């Protein structure tokens, strides 16, 4: 096996809040045309980005910090 150049990853895990979007290090919750979508990087061995429609109330809860992205995974049984 050959290897490429090592990638140095930023050590930040801050959550950024905008009026219609909340963004975490590997996920986001966004309002689009009246719908709310949860987009996240799956933890599966070859887990890519997945997108799932969630309830409006969940956006408010995540925005307020009352709900985490992990809570969304459990609530909607996502992986």
């Amino acid at each position, binding site marked *: 096996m050959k290897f490429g150049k090592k990638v140095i990853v930023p*050590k930040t895990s801050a959550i950024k809040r905008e009026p219609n979007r909340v963004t975490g290090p590997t996920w986001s919750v966004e309002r689009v045309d009246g719908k709310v979508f949860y987009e996240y990087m799956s933890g599966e061995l070859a887990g890519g980005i997945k997108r799932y429609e969630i309830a409006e109330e969940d956006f408010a809860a995540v925005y307020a910090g009352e709900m985490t992205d992990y809570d969304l995974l459990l609530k909607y049984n996502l992986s």
Partner: protein
Amino acid sequence: MLTRVVSYMTRSKGWLSWGWNRIIDDGLARVGAFRSVYPAKLRAAAADLQRRLLDTLAVGMTRIQRKSTKNAEPHVVRQDKVAPPRRISGLSDEKIREILDTPRGQRPDPSTYMTKAEIDEHLARFDDGAVRFRDANYDTAGPPGGSVMPKNEFEAMVKDAGGDLSIVEDGLGFDPGHLTSGRFEPVLIEAEDFNSIRIPSGNEGGANDRWLPGGFTSGGQAEAVMDFTGVDFTPIILD
């Protein structure tokens, strides 16, 4: 045939003497008696023959079987008793079922059903590094609680596949095209960069319906999880 014999005997009575006719009548009576019972006797004889043939066949088959095994003597078991095969994780089916029936988010920590030695032995598989397949469009190898496999097991898998990623895909249980499309690239996480590597509890965000407790996938692949936030990685280039 008997019908023809009876016919000849009956016709001959017309040109034979009285003494001969008595003999013929006696013969006809015997033939009649025989004809009334012979179907039952034939059936009994056929059944007896069938039973004898089956008995002979059974004895012959038993002898053949004994000669084809090491245990040639009847009613003597010479094999040693061996323990039934264990699951690759070493957990009983009952324990696995109990853990799987627990809702995700509430499943027990592996330290409650695995010994420290078992956990250490499992995680030692990752001493040479861990491999994960990251989405090439993003600048992180994975999320918190993302799955990894041992580097040396990935190397062996690629070697066995002759570098054919479609075979690696199949071996890992991925959908066709998952790796060959180029969307995902294998990356190495060096042991010094590990962040909370551990045996998955099944509570992870990436634990799907096929997850099994004990550190092995349903396909028997060793797995662990770690938190990837801020974890450096090195792309693996497959020719």
